[in-house]
């Protein structure tokens, strides 16, 4: 075979010989070498999920200590400095190190399976985004461990974050760690976007894409657009602190408000980025238990995209009290109220799906269905804060703390736990225990609402957020005690979840390929999937390839066991963005140490910047350069095959 030759992929049937050949091509070397160099999206996805759950547990323990301190008035379990670092680290952990990476983990694992593909578009980039995430998490937490954790809340307002008021290393750890994490988020987002548009199975036209993929896509586009703003903000802060620049210092013409704009231009779209993929999980998995397709699939996909677009225009609602002109506030207030509309579309689509289907009450269903209520509670409290005069009272009280926990726990943690019950069989080949699952659900649901529903009232009674203690006689004592009790109950629920995962991993019932009778492609392959995902590339004829026999809607039949073989090497197929017509054969990279080396180099570089040690930074920089050289060194095996005839290039 000539290199760079035009080749039409062979079509064939799924068979054991083919599978053996593909296995040999795609399998990661066993042992530590493979562990460090793998680019398999499934392994990377699971690493993301496990790491994010570990950080969820750590952030949860931080929250419990906070709740002990706040269980009654004037308690002195923590010093103000300890409390401030703890609440800031809790926010940083949950928002940056858990909520987004957990969704990246699920997307990483599931996307190629949902798309009928063999890997993400850029497998090495995928490995890099995980390693950099891990490096950033270790970097940020090493500050906390040595007593220099973030101490200015997760949104880190200046001038308090400036050196004049915050002389320790706390803010240097946080600023640099966030820039490092931004690299991970950015490369991950770019990978998701290309994967979405170029690697869907033939026939999976854009109207047949599951909502979960839409959620991650919109989140990724948002991240790509807004992460630079926050990385820049943290970089400028670091410059202010280390080199005496004056970006945010008012005494020399800097602007404290500039920080808030840069942060919230990022921060609000980020909030949607950590809920839209989770909403997508519900949109895809809830209908499986309702035994009917999602109501208004197209509308829900459009709603997902519109939420994100409107989400770019609401950031000022975090800044209503900063003295902005009334006209600007009216605009952002209006946009913040209007954004309710697409969210309402999704909610009514879910409710209609439940009513028009025949729901089977599993643990996963309970998590998804209860999420609808929690989503609405978090939504309407958001609607209240969208009204400027009301927000002037609500903002920076515990009402907002209650609101954001309903959003983040209700629309991220609950769907994620439900999704774990749903996809665990695919990940591991075993079912999670349903009996323990019920205990898990009800403890989490009741504990969460016991803890956080009364917190709205605490806020309406005027308790400000971010206080390390509060005086008695303000009417907050009993409410805070209830919240503390509820948060411990909730924590027990989460613990039951982890126990269930751990036990089911060894003792769970064997699952089979498609234990829930679900419609999408990931359920057509074995559980867990082989390294190559699919023996033949499926060809898709509808939104629900595995439900076609039951729905009998005459759209034609998807072909799951006969299709492109692509067994000449590590190959996958690229398809057109809208119609998913086959376009070209993708040569996928082998396992590589380059991503790990690059991440280590970046970590050393950032440690050098933290310590202001040129030599350390230089070593890190050199390692980065070497890793990039290794990565980009031309390889004959990765050369894309150019067609012979020029006109075929447009095929």
């Amino acid at each position: 075979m000539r290199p760079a030759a035009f080749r039409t992929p062979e079509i064939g049937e799924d068979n054991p010989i083919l599978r053996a050949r593909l296995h040999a091509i795609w399998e990661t070397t066993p042992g530590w070498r493979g562990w460090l160099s793998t680019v398999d999206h499934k392994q990377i996805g699971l690493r993301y999920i496990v790491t994010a759950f570990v950080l969820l547990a750590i952030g949860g323990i931080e929250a419990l200590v906070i709740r002990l301190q706040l269980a009654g008035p004037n308690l002195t379990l923590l010093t103000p400095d300890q409390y401030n670092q703890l609440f800031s680290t809790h926010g940083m952990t949950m928002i940056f190190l858990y909520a987004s990476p957990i969704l990246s983990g699920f997307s990483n694992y599931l996307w190629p399976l949902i798309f009928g593909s063999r890997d993400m578009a850029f497998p090495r980039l995928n490995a890099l985004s995980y390693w950099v995430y891990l490096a950033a998490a270790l970097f940020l937490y090493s500050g906390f461990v040595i007593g220099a954790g973030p101490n200015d809340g997760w949104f880190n307002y200046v001038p308090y974050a400036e050196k004049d008021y915050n002389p320790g290393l706390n803010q240097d750890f946080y600023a640099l760690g966030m820039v490092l994490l931004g690299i991970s988020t950015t490369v991950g987002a770019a990978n998701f976007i290309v994967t979405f548009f170029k690697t869907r199975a033939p026939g999976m036209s854009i109207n047949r894409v599951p909502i979960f993929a839409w959620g991650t896509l919109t989140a990724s586009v948002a991240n790509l657009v807004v992460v630079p703003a926050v990385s820049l903000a943290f970089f400028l802060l670091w410059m202010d602190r280390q080199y005496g620049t004056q970006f945010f210092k008012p005494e020399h013409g800097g602007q404290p408000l500039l920080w808030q704009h840069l942060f919230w231009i990022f921060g609000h779209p980020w909030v949607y980025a950590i809920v839209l993929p989770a909403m997508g999980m519900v949109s895809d998995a809830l209908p499986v238990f309702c035994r009917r397709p999602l109501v208004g699939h197209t509308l829900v996909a459009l709603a997902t995209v519109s939420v994100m677009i409107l989400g770019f225009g609401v950031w000022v609602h975090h800044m209503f009290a900063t003295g902005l002109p009334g006209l600007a506030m009216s605009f952002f207030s209006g946009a913040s109220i209007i954004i309710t509309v697409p969210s309402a579309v999704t909610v009514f689509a879910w409710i209609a799906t439940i009513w028009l289907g025949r729901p089977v009450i599993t643990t996963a269903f309970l998590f998804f269905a209860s999420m609808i209520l929690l989503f609405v509670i978090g939504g309407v409290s958001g609607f209240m804060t969208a009204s400027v005069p009301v927000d002037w009272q609500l903002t920076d009280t515990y009402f907002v703390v209650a609101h954001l926990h309903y959003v983040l726990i209700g629309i991220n943690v609950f769907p994620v736990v439900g999704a774990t019950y749903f996809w665990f069989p695919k990940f591991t080949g075993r079912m999670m225990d349903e009996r323990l699952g019920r205990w898990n659900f009800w403890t989490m649901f009741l504990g969460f609402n016991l803890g956080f529903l009364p917190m709205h009232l605490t806020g309406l009674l005027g308790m400000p957020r971010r206080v390390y203690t509060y005086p008695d006689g303000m009417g907050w004592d009993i409410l805070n005690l209830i919240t503390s009790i509820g948060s411990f109950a909730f924590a027990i629920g989460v613990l039951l979840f982890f126990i269930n995962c751990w036990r089911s991993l060894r003792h769970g019932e064997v699952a089979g390929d498609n234990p829930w009778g679900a419609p999408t492609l990931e359920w057509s392959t074995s559980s867990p999937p082989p390294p190559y995902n699919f023996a033949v590339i499926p060809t898709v004829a509808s939104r629900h390839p595995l439900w076609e026999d039951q729905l009998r809607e005459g759209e034609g039949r998807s072909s799951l066991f006969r299709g492109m073989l692509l067994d000449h090497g590590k190959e996958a197929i690229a398809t057109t963005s809208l119609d998913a017509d086959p376009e070209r054969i993708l040569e996928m990279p082998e396992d590589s140490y380059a991503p790990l080396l690059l991440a280590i180099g970046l970590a050393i570089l950032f440690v050098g910047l933290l310590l202001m040690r040129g030599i350390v930074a230089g070593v890190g920089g050199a390692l980065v350069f070497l890793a990039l050289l290794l990565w980009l060194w031309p390889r004959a095996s990765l050369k894309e095959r150019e067609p012979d005839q020029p006109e075929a290039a447009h095929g």
Partner: protein
Amino acid sequence: MSATPLAYLTGAGARADTTVSLTWFTLIVSILVCLIIGALVWWGARRYSARGGALATTSVTVERGGNGIRWIVIGLIISAVPLLIALVWTMAALAEISGPPGNPALVLDVTGHQWWWEARYNGTHPSDTFSTANEIHIPVGVPVLVRLHGADVIHSFWVPKLAGKTDAIPGQNNVTWLQADVPGRYRGQCTEYCGLQHAKMAFEVVAEPRAAFERWRARQLQTAPPPVTPQQKQGLAVVNYRCSLCHAIRGTSAGSGYGPDLTHLMSRQLIAGGALQNTPGNLAGWIQDPQSVKPGSLMPRQYLSGPELAAVTAYLETLQ
């Protein structure tokens, strides 16, 4: 003072009242929405209670039935009504309270410091101007304009019974206004996280009839009386030597503006940024060891001897 001094579901002035009704409207709509959605999910899920083991899911065949789009359309139409009302009401309320109605009766400069509040009353002449701390007096029944300044980091000025929050940002001149229609003491609190003692940065607004307010103002303009007893004289000497680096007492040589003005310290009910009642015991304890009351406070430990502390306290108690 009521049992919930920072609650804002009731107001005590024209500005707060405008917001209170809108808050109640959005709150009630929100609760109704949650109840309706909760009931829909609950009933919807229970209508086919096909309870069973996990694998039972596959035993129910998949069917596409019913007109789901109708749900979305009807749901949206119903949701649109309260949304539109809230939108219009919000804009109307915003227009109403964005500035004081007519000319304000009083203009104050309030500055947020780590971790206390300074209030400056400006007269037409420097001798008509004075500063006080953590206790802001205003005449009742008229709008009062407050110009907000940040001395160090961002703080937020909030008196929930009278007005919503406005940030005090260094390098930026923000303006808000208050109106109390009922005489009383209204608690305020810093609500933008500002460092170690953000929790203990409270203050009070005292709304009183015009005549009482003018009497208070006239008294605040007076300088401190000279010490009388030997102990008070010794106290003043210590104050000049220790406290005057940060504090001002008009009528003495203590003239720094770094900490609160103490000229009429004893006329205030709260000290230490609202953290303590102004009793002789609390005052002495605060002077001697501020760090145990407010760890991280910018006021250092004093290490005064017993007699020195008693003398300082005795002198300060003359600052009525």
